[in-house]
């Protein structure tokens, strides 16, 4: 949705130009072919690295169908950093797990949507093709470094696994590369540590191993699911700094999932705020941090303790996140909103609108104060 329209327009413009060239200058077939090829390459270059449209993932439970992700659209350019922010249960992790089809099916199922990565749809792809992408072009770092490493396997063997599975190099070369990578993520004495077990590492070091493992294949996209939540504040800064450094070196794109807006300010180019399975606000970091429109984004920002005066009562968003079971409400945030709106207004349908170029907000009387400017 976002950024899709201009590209399509550009494409038609190019076709039009081509026909014009052919008619006016009478180019030969071979020349026209060359131009078409050039245009196609150009077109592909323009295309975003990842384009997710209208993704929906539901879980069938005894209590009913849980709409964990319900119509999420994202796009990501090469080398760009996207932050996805939301409370637990807002569907931010499920969105990213769906992209790599890591959702257990059943009870989960991907109901609709497309996720175009490098010209192919991740959601429709055969498992065998997807395995070629997993850990090679798209890597993932999980939240809890304590549970995502196998305690029975030596660190070194876990590190080189993606290289061996994808047959990128032989074992000796893989070891070389693993040692290089351990050095790069700041693990001292890698030769000795290569043959240790995960329990001999501290939490910060384990997370660094996870990063080394994710980046060893030099992926084009890194998905980091709360990479710093389980870590100390000082180590958090180290890990974020490290991800940023590696991103610059490899030129990869990063999706960073977090519940803490403070973590991503200054780290992300663009931010999507998720609530109850949908994106409620999306824009550049500056849009979200300086010009946030949605009441939920504003509430999230206000509730961070470091931003508040000592002695005053901390701001909290009233209530708790809704259970996305049952019929879809017109505005999921309405019960928790602190804005004034009438019952009639509450029944209005929320619309996801571009309020400023590149800044999208779900506009509803309960979520945006001056909604009348945007809703006709």
């Amino acid at each position: 949705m976002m950024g899709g329209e201009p590209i399509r327009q550009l494409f038609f413009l190019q076709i039009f130009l081509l026909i014009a060239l052919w008619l006016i200058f009478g180019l030969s077939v071979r020349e026209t072919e060359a131009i078409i090829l050039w245009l196609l390459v150009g077109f592909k270059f323009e295309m975003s690295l990842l384009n997710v449209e209208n993704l929906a993932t539901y879980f069938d439970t005894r209590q009913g169908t849980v709409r964990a992700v319900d119509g999420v659209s994202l796009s990501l350019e090469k080398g760009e950093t996207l932050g996805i922010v939301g409370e637990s249960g807002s569907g931010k992790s499920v969105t990213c797990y769906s992209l790599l089809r890591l959702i257990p099916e059943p009870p989960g199922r991907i109901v609709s949507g497309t996720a175009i990565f490098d010209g192919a749809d991740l959601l429709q792809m055969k498992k065998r093709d997807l395995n070629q992408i997993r850990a090679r072009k798209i890597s993932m770092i999980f939240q809890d470094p304590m549970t995502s490493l196998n305690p029975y396997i030596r660190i070194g063997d876990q590190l080189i696994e993606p290289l061996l599975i994808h047959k990128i190099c032989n074992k000796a070369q893989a070891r070389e590369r693993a040692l290089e990578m351990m050095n790069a993520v700041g693990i001292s004495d890698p030769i000795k540590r290569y043959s240790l077990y995960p329990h001999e590492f501290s939490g910060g070091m384990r997370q660094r191993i996870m990063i080394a493992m994710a980046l060893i294949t030099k992926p084009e996209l890194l998905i980091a699911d709360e990479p710093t939540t389980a870590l100390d504040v000082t180590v958090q800064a180290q890990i974020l700094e490290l991800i940023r450094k590696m991103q610059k070196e490899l030129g990869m794109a990063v999706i960073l999932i977090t519940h803490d807006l403070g973590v991503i300010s200054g780290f992300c180019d663009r931010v999507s705020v998720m609530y109850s399975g949908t994106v409620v606000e999306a824009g550049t970091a500056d849009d979200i941090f300086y010009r946030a429109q949605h009441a939920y984004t504003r509430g999230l920002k206000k509730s961070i303790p470091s931003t508040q005066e000592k002695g005053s009562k901390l701001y909290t968003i009233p209530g708790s996140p809704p259970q996305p079971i049952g019929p879809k409400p017109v505005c999921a945030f309405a019960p928790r909103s602190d804005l004034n709106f009438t019952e009639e207004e509450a029944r209005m349908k929320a619309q996801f609108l571009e309020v400023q170029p590149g800044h999208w907000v779900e506009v509803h009387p309960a979520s945006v104060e001056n909604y009348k400017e945007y809703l006709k």
Partner: protein
Amino acid sequence: MSLQDSFLEIREVRSWFPMRKSLFSNKETQYVKAVDGVSLSLVKGEVLGLVGESGCGKTTLSRAIMQLIRPTSGKIILEGKDLTLLPEKELRVMRPNFQMIFQDPFASLNPRLTVFDTLSEAIRVRHKLRGDELKAAVGQLMIKVGLSAIQMNKYPHEFSGGQRQRIAIARALAPEPKLIIADEPVSALDVSIQSQVLNLLKELIQSMGLTMIFISHDLSVVKYMADRIAVMYLGKIVELGEAIEVMANPVHAYTQALISAIPTLDPKSERSRKRIVLQGDPPSPIDPPKGCSFASRSWISHSPKDAKLDGVFMEVKPGHFVEVHPATVENHRRYLPDSKFETQ
């Protein structure tokens, strides 16, 4: 502060754990020096924030205060009674006076007990209530922590993380304690839920006149809660002072690094800001290096000889104590004009 009006007095507490060597080895036993000589004192109604990285010994210290582990040496004096000298039986009588809130509300509540079971057990420590009276007391307690009394017969898994932490708080309050140790009570919660729980704790401290030790690795949270802040590094207190003073004028390099790690909500300044990122991990507490334990991670230049010497824990301003050492304090001569250190 005289001894009389200190409510809790911790004196030179050490908690060392012996490392098991092989059976026939005749080497000296090594110790994990989790807490290595901590002295603190709290007045009634005070909230002390204890800050430090994981592995610095803050949880061990809190367990030692709670007498969940007996410290290796040192005194813990609560209202004039030395807890370390009390036998188990007498300690049991004292225990309702000091309670603890644990970090992980998913692990610290018994999944097989309803909220009523959990709370009534704690209430009956103090009051021998039964039947409707007990029910009423549980209900009151639940309302106090912002839950509704109807939820009394539910099990922990039916609650969200924030609600579970409220139950854990209610359980800690049930025996009507005077001292509460809160060990990272909000770090397992979402940011938006954190502030709800912090508000609740603050309200309870004020309304019930509780004394609290609030442990966290996040200074931004501690700043909000605490009257005084103690910064711990590798088993020792390295900086101690009024919360406002420590946040505004941190003297120890480690405190400065902790404060610089607090993220802001301003992307522009955040992009240009130079964060102090500490190098490496803290040294192992198993026979830690002699001298200043922070020297290996410090960015302040100092001579290698000085690193082997101990710092001096001294009052740099009234009520503001810092471990002064060439590696921990820039321009240390300001505080120690004629010290033994060779770094100028």
